[in-house]
Structure formats: C-alpha cells, structure tokens
C-alpha cells in the first residue's frame, strides 16, 4: 500500500522507525497512524476529539479514542508508549504546559511539532499590515482561530530549557525542506522555518 502524506509526517515517521508503540494525540483522520502501522509495523493508538474523524479512523482499522487531550491523558500509564506524537496542536490547548507534562509522562520520548510564529512572513504581516497574521500555515482570523498559545521556535526551546525538558533533536521545515536546528543557526531558523519539530523527553 502506498500512502501519500505531508512532509512533516514523513519526518515524524522517520524518527519513529519500526516496531514501536506510538500514541498520536489529535490524530485527525489517522493518516500518520495508518502510515506508521502499515509501512513501519508500529503499534499505534490515537486520541481525537472530533467524532466524525474518530469514525473515519475506526473504519480504517485504527484504534482511536474519542476524547479531549486536556482531560483524557491522565488515564494512560507512565512510559506506556515509546513515542507520543503531538502534531501542530500544542498551541490550541487551554493549558499547553499541562498537556506537555502529561505527554512527557506517558511517552519515553515525545515528538512535538509547532507552527513557527517567528517565521518571516508572519513577522512582516504584523509589522507592515498591522493585523494579526494570516498565512498558509496559520489560515485563521484572530476571532476564529483555535490557536490560543502561539509561540516561536525560540520560545519553545527556551521553554524546554526553563522546565528542564531535554531536547533530543530539533528539526525545522521550510517549503518541504528539512534541516537541523542548532544553537548557532537558531536566529536564522527562527526566521526562515515554517514548522519546528522537536523530540523531547
């Protein structure tokens, strides 16, 4: 079976490799889960708040639970998954710090991706237009956005330092190109990356 998915998911799948236990938080229609299960023989579970998406996942034979990560994560035992994945959802939680704590508890490693609010187009939008940025990656108007806690790549890295969270890998994605973030290139990556992908524990 051939599955086409976005670059971000390819990157996440490469990090995870084969035969791992994975929990996908906010798994949507199960695209990443299906890829991990079919192509990499991972044992995958998902959590998704939207009923119709949960049904879609179940129809694909994926084990997905309908529920809200802010309430449901407590039920999963400590270190019960090799990887917990949170793709571009952290900013949408009411209490992202609490959710992150739970992810770190449940997963041996956690993969978090964040849309970078420090991306130059976002910066220019606010600087010159003087209105809240609306871009391809952040398509919502300020009054209807699910994104309550936007942050930049730098914000996230600083946050991890402050909370003593170990960052095992930091990657960034710009126009489908993937590269590593280091202390030296942070300034540039924080301007030119659309997405940050972090492996933390």
């Amino acid at each position: 079976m051939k599955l086409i998915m976005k670059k971000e998911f390819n990157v996440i799948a490469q990090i995870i490799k084969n035969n791992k236990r994975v929990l996908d938080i906010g798994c949507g229609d199960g695209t990443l889960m299906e890829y991990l299960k079919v192509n990499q023989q991972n044992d995958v579970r998902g959590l998704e708040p939207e009923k119709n998406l949960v049904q879609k996942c179940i129809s694909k034979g994926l084990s997905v639970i309908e529920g809200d990560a802010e309430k449901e994560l407590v039920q999963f035992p400590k270190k019960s998954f090799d990887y917990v994945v949170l793709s571009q959802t952290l900013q949408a939680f009411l209490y992202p710090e609490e959710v992150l704590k739970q992810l770190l508890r449940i997963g041996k490693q956690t993969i978090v991706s964040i849309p970078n609010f420090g991306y130059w187009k976002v910066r220019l939008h606010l600087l010159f237009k003087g209105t809240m940025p609306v871009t391809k990656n952040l398509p919502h108007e300020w009054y209807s956005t699910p994104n309550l806690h936007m942050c930049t790549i730098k914000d996230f890295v600083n946050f991890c330092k402050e909370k003593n969270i170990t960052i095992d890998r930091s990657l960034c994605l710009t126009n489908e190109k993937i590269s590593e973030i280091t202390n030296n290139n942070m300034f540039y990556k924080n301007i030119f990356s659309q997405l940050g992908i972090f492996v933390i524990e």
Partner: protein
Amino acid sequence: MNIEIKNIKKLIIGQSVELDCGKIIKDFPLAYETYGTLNKNKSNAILVFHALTGDQFVTNINPITKRVGWWKTAVGPGKAIDTNKYFIICANVLGGCMGSFGPKEINPETNKLFETTFPVITIKDMVKVQKYLLDYLGIKKLLAVAGGSMGGMQVLQFTSLYPDSSYAAIPIACSASHSAQNIALNELGRQAIMADPNWKKENSTPDKGLAVARMAAHITYLSKKELQEKFGRKLQDKGSLKFSFDADFQIESYLRYQGANFVDRFDANSYLYITRAMDYFDMEKQFNGNLSLAFKNTKSRFCVISFSSDWLYPTIENKEIVIALNACGANVGFVEINSDKGHDSFLLDVPEFLKTLSQFLDSTYNEINNEKRI
C-alpha cells in the same frame, strides 16, 4: 409467558458447571441459533450476546414469537453484521425463557417448575456456559464478541475470562459495574412483579406486575427528547380528556401496549433472575477494585460504543471501560454516537452507529485474513 417453545436448537451441556452462588448444574439445556455459514478455517464467527429481554433469535422472524428478531437493524444479509460474510451465533442466556436452563424449566428432582427455586445466576455464569457452545461448534477463536446493554456486560466478562478467544470485542452501551440508579430501576421492576398477587401462585402468572416492570423499564430505554417529540401531550382519541384513569395520553397507551405485549413472550421469574444478574455485575469488584486487571491479558481489539442520549448506561460509564483498557495497554477504540434515541439506539436504525460497527468488523476481518495469507 403464554407461548409454547418447541422445535428450537438446544445444546445439552453435560459438564458440571459451578455457578457463582456455589451450586453446581449439569445436563442442562442451552438454546441457541446461528445465522450465515461458518467458513473453512472457522475464522468468521461472531458471538452475539443478547440483552435483558432478548433471545437467541437475533434476526429474521422469531419462530416462537412470530416477531422480527431484536437486532434486525444490525444483523442480516448486507447489514453491519453481514450474514453473507460472517457466522453469527447467539444463545439464550442462562436464566432466560426461550429454551435455555431457567426458572421456567422443570426441576428433575421435584418434577415441578423451578420458578423461584432456580439458583441465582450471574453474568459470569451466563458467559461460562456459552463457552461450551463454542467448544461444541469447534470454534477456537471468534472473530468478534458483540452485544449491547447486558450483552455488552457479557462481552466484557467474556474477554476477561477468555483473553485470547476473540480477535475483536464490541461492548455497546454498557457498564463494567451496575450503578445504583440501574439497581434501583431493576428493583422497581422486581417489586412490581413480586407485588402481583399472582406471583408464586400455582397455574397463574403475574402478568400485571411484569407488564408494569416492562413499562417502567421501557421509559429508561428512551430519551426525554424522543418521548417528547414522538408523543408530547398528544391524546389517544377524540382529542379531549376523559376525566378518568383510562389511557388519555398516547404515551400511556403506548406503554400499556408495550407491557401487555411483553407478558406474552417473557417469563416473570426470568425477569427477576436476569435483572439480579445484572445488578450483581461488578467487574471492578471481581478484580479487587482495579478494573484494568480484568483486561490484563486480553489480546482482543476493542471498539467501545456509547450513545449521547443514553442515560441508563451513559457515556461516562462506557468511558470507564475505555480508561481501564488503556491503563493496561489494551488495544481500544472508542466513539460516542450522536443519537436522540436513548439507550435503545443500539437496537434501532442509527446509521452512524451501524456504519461504525460494520467498518470495525470489516477492518478486523480483513486484517486477520491478510495476516493469514502472509
């Protein structure tokens, strides 16, 4: 119960079975029905468990009551549980009144009906005896176990007792332990039966009591919204109040009809025994307060389904099952289906539910068969 039961499939279980109450039963009948064809490698069998007032006649016309089977919406050719594809087995529960060993059977020791001398049974007892049926049919591993309400409880008990006997498990609109509210509602039904002067009287049946029990229970199967929409304050005939205690309102007449109909096909003592079994059901207690231990060894893949308007077995109780399964690392999916039809949703034509059921079974079936081909 007024109808005669004859010409049905029965397995006589010769082994001694020790019930939870300590009594031992032997050489007793288990009535069952099957639909569809068992495939060569016996990998398409689904054991369906019925609810409180159900029986083994899942679909088609029930030959005894002449009514359509209780799960006709879900089971049949081309339906969610497709009889063209799967082999469906359903047994009348222990304590039931459609041919299985129950209070309506004759006690060989006294040559009289058991009635209230029948031993008190549990959900676990019901499940244990059905395993003998699977052995008899030569089925080592089921494709799925499925059931709603008390049927769902049997699903949970089955997967706990036999962790490697079914690829998939579908507990629907149920609970891992009967709530105080549910015990209270069952007690209401039992008291209605026991208050009938014909109860325990020779050659008579407590029809009035059983009808009231059914009426009360029937309300709990529906949602307030549905009742309001379907009946509202509509009057039965002529559109005026009669200033009497006749059935003025359509809802009254509907409930009376439900009650009267029920007594023809159900035995009052069976109602007592089966509701008792439901009340005694507490899987958490079976595992010293830790429900997840119940599923510790389970290899089944679960799909737990609840309904938004079900107040008898609300989503929150179904979710406790999901939480316990997650806590032990079991393979579990869960969805709450939006429906206004209350607890009865699982028996009715609720397309989103039937779709979920069918797709979950299909994907499980395909996965197993793909694995085997590899």
